[in-house]
């Protein structure tokens, strides 16, 4: 058991490193002279991201589409039995508390499971939750670039029965309307802190 966990953490570390390097490369290639390098573990501003994904409505979406509105973004996969539905229900609770203010938010679930989560599968899944939630997916390369720019980690974990599950960053990322990264709502964060964090990006 400890061996397996160490293995998972070890692989996660390598993934993170790879993600950081990728993101840094992408970031440098766009901006001629780099100012201070971005922090190793915080998402880039949306304005410095370059990913392109496909929405559950089969539209191509990029970070530029989100600038101008506050955004709430999280990662998951639709085969996820506990974490993702729980996050979705937490979000539903926050939206309820925010009332009509919540309509200003871009809310997106980005899949880390390219293999199973096609746009059609995402569509079926997000329809079960809130119509304001956008489901995004893409090719393995597209998802890898997105993960790198958000500084998130994910890893495919084979199961004994031949199936697989995904470990992934579970926090919810908040961005200001101008695309700056604002904060993260952790998976086990006290709900009383979540709504004020969202209110800050809505202000």
């Amino acid at each position, binding site marked *: *058991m400890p061996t397996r*966990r160490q293995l998972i*953490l070890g692989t996660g570390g390598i993934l993170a490193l790879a993600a950081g390097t990728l993101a840094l490369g992408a970031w440098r290639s766009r901006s001629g002279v780099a100012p201070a390098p971005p922090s190793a573990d915080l998402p880039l501003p949306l304005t410095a991201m370059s990913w392109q994904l496909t929405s559950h409505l089969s539209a191509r979406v990029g970070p530029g589409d989100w600038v101008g509105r506050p955004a709430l973004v999280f990662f998951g996969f*639709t*085969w996820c*039995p*506990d974490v993702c539905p729980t996050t979705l229900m937490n979000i539903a*609770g926050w939206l309820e508390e925010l009332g009509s203010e919540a309509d200003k938010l871009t809310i997106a679930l980005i899949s880390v499971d390219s293999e199973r989560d096609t746009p059609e599968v995402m569509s079926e899944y997000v329809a079960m939750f809130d119509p304001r939630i956008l489901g995004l997916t893409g090719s393995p390369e597209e998802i890898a670039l997105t993960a790198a720019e958000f500084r998130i980690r994910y890893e495919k974990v084979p199961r004994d029965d031949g199936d697989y599950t995904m470990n992934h960053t579970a926090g919810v990322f908040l961005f200001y309307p101008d695309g700056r990264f604002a904060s993260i709502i*952790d998976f086990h964060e006290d709900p009383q802190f979540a709504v004020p964090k969202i209110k800050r990006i809505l202000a």
Partner: protein
Amino acid sequence: MKTLLYSVPFLLIASSAIAGSCPQWTVGDLVIDAAWSKATIGDARPGIIYFTVTNTGAEADNLTGIATPAAEMPMLHETVVTDGIASMPHAPAIPVPANGSVSLAPGGYHGMLMGLTAALAKGDTFPATLTFERAGTVEIEVAVEALTAREPTCRQDAS
């Protein structure tokens, strides 16, 4: 066979759910309460089981196993978040403290149902057998709630 399996217990549970309190099962000093699951989209995705175990005795116990005809490979898991990354390791023994309780609930311990024999629909129930190290085994009926449920619709008695 499957219809019979699901529909008969459903009638029994439905009446108690309408009455308000969640059904309870007892084995030794342990009381199992608020057993619920979530509807699934199809039968390819894993299902989930949540419940609460209350120990009225002075000796601690461990929940070590789960079995159910609803899935080929049911297993006890725990959602663990390490450095912001969620994983679901197998939980070989979930501690039930003496004079205390443990909840299998969203975001923590849960029974994961891999290889569902059929999709789970809201309103279904299915049996599950829990194995405790000291108290032995007990069969419970798990009520399937909506995929978007956060808790069982029955009222959980204070434990």
